[in-house]
């Protein structure tokens, strides 16, 4: 299973990369970790004339606290994110989603930016970015722009990033106070894409009221999803009065465009979704209460 031939560039700055992309348009494709792209090329499911390898661009690497946000360079590997004490403390949801990504060999090459730009609805990072209202830094021939996560994902495997643009970094807002975070996924085997998954963040007030919460859904649509009805039902309520099963049910009902495939129907996915949301909610709340 050998890929069709392609040309190869390895720019060292984001601007250089964008220059090549602008020159070649659709015929060129960004190569980051390659863990999603290279299998597709090997299977000849996709063909590109040119790969632009962004793995040598230092400016895409890094994890740094910038005010209220944690900035992670798009080229940062999953493994670097997994090892980072900074991520563990400033963006626990990102840290806890990471070990669920594939397998250690994948995480040693796969990048956070690559996963978000690839926008597989069954992947972890897109749902985390959406749940935390992250913002994506995108560089194009016309300059830089920042896109809110809510506007970033446009459909199955598609985002607002144009063929001549490059995702440069992602800023995750830092939650402080009495917070709890949890990621729960159900997959056929360890490391497989989730059949349904949930990422939950919750912040409690001193009175145990739910100050804010976010429920992100994995694998429940053509993009990562939020569960607005579930979030609304919990926000402002006394956390002890929030029924975790109800949150799960509401979240499952919030999903639109739920897929049906070899692993199960949409109805089955909703059932699983409800269960994983319930479990994630329960865990996140337990953690928040301890804080």
């Amino acid at each position, binding site marked *: 299973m050998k890929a069709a031939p392609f040309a190869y560039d390895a720019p060292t700055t984001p601007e250089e990369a964008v220059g090549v992309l602008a020159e070649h348009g659709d015929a060129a494709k960004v190569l980051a970790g390659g863990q999603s792209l*290279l299998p597709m090329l090997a299977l000849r499911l996709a063909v590109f004339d040119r790969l632009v390898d962004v793995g040598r661009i230092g400016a895409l690497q890094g994890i740094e606290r910038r005010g209220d946000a944690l900035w992670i360079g798009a080229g940062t590997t999953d493994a670097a994110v997994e090892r980072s004490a900074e991520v563990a403390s400033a963006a626990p949801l990102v840290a806890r989603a990471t070990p669920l990504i*594939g397998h250690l060999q994948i995480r040693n*090459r796969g990048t956070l930016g690559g996963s978000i730009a690839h926008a597989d609805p069954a992947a972890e990072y897109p749902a985390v970015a959406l749940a935390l209202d992250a913002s994506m830094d995108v560089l194009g021939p016309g300059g830089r722009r920042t896109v809110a996560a809510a506007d970033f994902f446009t459909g199955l495997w598609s985002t607002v990033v144009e063929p001549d643009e490059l995702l440069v970094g992602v800023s995750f807002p830092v939650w402080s106070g009495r917070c709890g975070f949890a990621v729960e996924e159900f997959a056929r085997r360890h490391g497989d894409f989730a059949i349904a998954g949930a990422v939950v963040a919750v912040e409690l007030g001193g009175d145990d009221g739910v100050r804010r919460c976010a429920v992100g859904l994995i694998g429940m649509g053509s993009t990562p999803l939020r569960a607005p009805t579930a979030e609304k039902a919990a926000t402002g309520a006394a956390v002890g009065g929030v029924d975790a099963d109800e949150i799960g049910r509401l979240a499952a009902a919030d999903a639109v465009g739920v897929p049906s495939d070899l692993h199960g129907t949409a109805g089955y996915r909703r059932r699983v979704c409800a269960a994983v949301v319930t479990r994630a909610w329960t865990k996140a709340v337990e953690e928040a209460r301890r804080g």
Partner: protein
Amino acid sequence: MDEIVVEVRVNGAPRRAQVEPRLTLADFLRERCRLTGTHLGCEHGVCGACTVLLDGAAVRSCLVLAVQAQGREVTTVEGLATDGGLTDVQQAFRDCHGLQCGFCTPGFVVTVTAMLADDPAPDDTAVREALSGNLCRCTGYQGILAAVRSVVDERAKEAS
């Protein structure tokens, strides 16, 4: 498509070749370096039979282009034992009947070597999760898990 000159250190020795960009690191090692211990079980990044160390990190060499390894260090199964014998990981696989046909074995041995360098005292769950990216069809994983457990225990004994 134009070929690119790539320089890689493989098992400590410098290698230089002219390659098509599409040539995977796995094929580079097997065909250009004649190191056939790295095996192709799927070529789409699931089975782990092609696992090598790239700058010390376990990676699927079928999902790395040779050109991406430019200037880096690659260690294959052939390069693990430096004195012609077997490493403790390899010996444990042998002692615990952790292989039958041997096709998946280099990938497992490399993965285990890297995994224990990162985490010397994994519990059973951590071991299984770390191995979940390598497929074996012959052993049912029983001997493999026993081998890893035995290395962890032996190294702990020696450390104390």
